[in-house]
């Protein structure tokens, strides 16, 4: 039934769902509010109690916005990497980004590094640069002459990932007293979200997205194969480079504030593709909104399930995403795209 709707209707439908989910999520928590009350608090100035104002505007709202950005970012990066590499089994971490970020963070925790840049904290900065440096290394390892063959890129990513994971394990063994902190970060969590986090990641998030949108059309042609794309007038190597840079920026910005939350970047592009087809001009916004919804709901579950304790959201996404992915595999087998 849904598939008979036009693309415009589909995306509107999904956005309405997003807004509903957002409002409902704002109502859950240590104090339960009615959705109506939540709307009042957000759109009114002053006449509600101070504490409600803080809970909704300073604690819950940034967390939900951040959840949306992280979910959307991972899904977008997933769409781009799957398209460039022309393999549906790829997620944004395939090029070693999570390992890079993880190593950066582990290093900071174990060595007890404390510094800040402008108003940014140590951990997000270490994660951000850890991931970018890793992508840079992987990209240059894969580069032969003036080309970056997709397979080499993938393999270089996997190899560098392994090395970094080993390094990370080593650091963890040395710094056993910080183990819990590290693991908590690695599992991915949005529990300490604040407006500062959003300010930290947003510039890179937006920059990455602008680059991606600029080359979105080429991605459709690259799906036909790199030679076909070139014959249709695409400067494949250039587009590939920018798309990888854009997607890496988005992923790095996201990982820096949330840790490595798995599975979203792998599954959401699939669901979006089933809804609107392989055209990236439609796929990109659909995957972004869907990814946002997916992570907001997952984060709700992470908050509610064992309340007052919080489960790292990465565990929720893996627990729901994994089985769903297996279901998809069994159901469609060949037609993964």
């Amino acid at each position, binding site marked *: 039934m849904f598939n008979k709707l036009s693309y415009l209707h589909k995306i509107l439908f999904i956005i309405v769902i997003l807004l509903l989910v957002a409002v409902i999520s704002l109502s859950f928590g240590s104090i339960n509010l009615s959705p109506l009350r939540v709307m009042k608090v957000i759109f009114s100035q002053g006449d509600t109690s101070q504490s409600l104002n803080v809970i909704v505007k300073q604690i819950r709202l940034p967390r939900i916005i951040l959840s949306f950005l992280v979910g959307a970012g991972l899904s977008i990066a997933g769409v781009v990497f799957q398209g460039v590499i022309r393999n549906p089994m790829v997620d944004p971490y395939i090029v070693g980004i999570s390992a890079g970020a993880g190593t950066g963070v582990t290093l900071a925790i174990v060595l007890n590094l404390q510094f800040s840049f402008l108003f940014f904290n140590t951990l997000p900065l270490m994660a951000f640069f850890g991931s970018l440096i890793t992508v840079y290394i992987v990209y240059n390892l894969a580069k032969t002459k003036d080309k970056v063959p997709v397979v080499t890129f993938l393999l270089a990513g996997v190899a560098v990932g392994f090395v970094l994971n080993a390094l990370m394990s080593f650091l963890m063994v040395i710094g056993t007293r910080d183990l819990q902190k590290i693991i908590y970060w690695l599992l991915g969590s949005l529990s300490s979200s604040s407006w500062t986090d959003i300010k930290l990641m947003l510039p890179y998030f937006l920059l990455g997205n602008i680059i991606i949108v600029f080359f979105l059309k080429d991605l459709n042609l690259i799906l*036909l194969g790199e030679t076909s794309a070139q014959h*249709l007038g695409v400067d494949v190597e250039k587009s590939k480079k920018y798309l990888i840079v854009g997607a890496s920026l988005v992923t790095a910005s996201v990982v820096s504030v949330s840790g490595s939350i798995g599975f979203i970047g792998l599954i959401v592009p699939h669901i979006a593709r089933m809804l609107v087809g*392989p055209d990236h001009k439609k796929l990109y916004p659909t995957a972004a909104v869907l990814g946002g919804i997916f992570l907001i709901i997952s984060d709700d579950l992470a908050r509610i399930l064992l309340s007052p304790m919080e489960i790292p959201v990465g565990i929720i996404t893996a627990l729901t995403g994994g089985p769903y992915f297996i279901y998809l595999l069994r159901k469609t087998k060949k037609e993964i795209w």
Partner: protein
Amino acid sequence: MLKLENIEFSYGDIKILKEIDFHLNKNEFIGIIGPNGSGKSTLLKNISKLLNPDSGYIYLDKNLLNDYSFKELAKKMAVVPQDTKVNFNFSVYDLVMMGRNPYQDRWGRIQKEDKRKVKEAMELTDIVKFKDKSIQNLSGGERQRVIIARAIVQEPELLLLDEPTASLDINYQRNIFDLISDLNEKLDMSVLAVSHDLNLISQYCDRLILLKDGKIHSMGQVDDVITKKNISEVYNTEVDIKFNPFTERPYVIIVPRRKGNSKMINNDFSVHLICGGGTGKNIMNILNDLKVNVTCGVLNRGDSDWEEAKRLNFDIVEIPPFAPIDKKSVAKNEKKIKKADLVVVSGTPFGWGNLDNIKVLNNFKEKEIVFFDDNLDKRDFTDGEFTKILAEIEEKNTVYEVNTDKELCNLLNTKYEEIKYD
């Protein structure tokens, strides 16, 4: 339109293309043929800028190919690849629309003009009825038409095709080539098509380029390129050329391995072959097919018969290039002849240089000797000496005359049976 000057290309140390030089005129349809590994596809990839030649120049409309951006190039040149499989669920319409990419801006906005061109191309290629189908649900022939439609909307002046009918049924093969021919004639596209199907492409193109080992072996009108000599030289196989009554174009037919070979699977039968200058090639292939033991001699190294015998791994009595036959090799030759059950003499001319190859037969008695092609007096360049020796040989030995390959086969079969049941 397109001009190639001295193109060389290699993958690593292996030279794939050597001294490729040709030009394609406006509105011309050139076919490129050649055996597997002769560099056809590599040549096409060099022309479509997928690969850069190591040296040489490629001009497209007087500008160097490398001076075109990919986008500009896509407006001038469209490529129909060998493998047209698309792994994604794009609709036929969307896929054809992708051909408009070089005319669209960054955001891929579709203009009226784009829609009109796509509609026209889909009508021309007769794919309107699949418009909304997924490309994955089409047959190979239908998909090929979609890809050609996509090439048409690029509005190219030059159309490159790599094995456009490689995996298609015969009705689609015709259909696709008819279509290409229409594009060439009605839409004024120049066409350069690679094909391993000599016969198909020969019926359609204006000129042919025959590649062998990365070099242009021959080039020109179809009749001049598709000859028995060229084809058997390049493909190393025996063919015959007929003419297609509908197009009056040459048509290559394969000559299958000779009948009767099944009887002679044993190699306890030996044949000595006296030949030279390429007259023995056919006979060698017959003997090879029959799997008998073959010895050859005396042959000069570098002689085309020597090359063929070498290729077939025959036992050869050889001497340096252009050297006269010396006594030592005559003796060697005599030994080999002694062992042979049968001696075959090819239709080679005899002069003073190779007369010893015949003279040696005079030393034998009751040997079975087959003379190929009885046009003997025309082959005598020894003022009658050869004919005289021949008469002497005939007196002492059993001599057969054969005129065709088939006669030779029959004779060999009979001889083999005789020996086997003795």
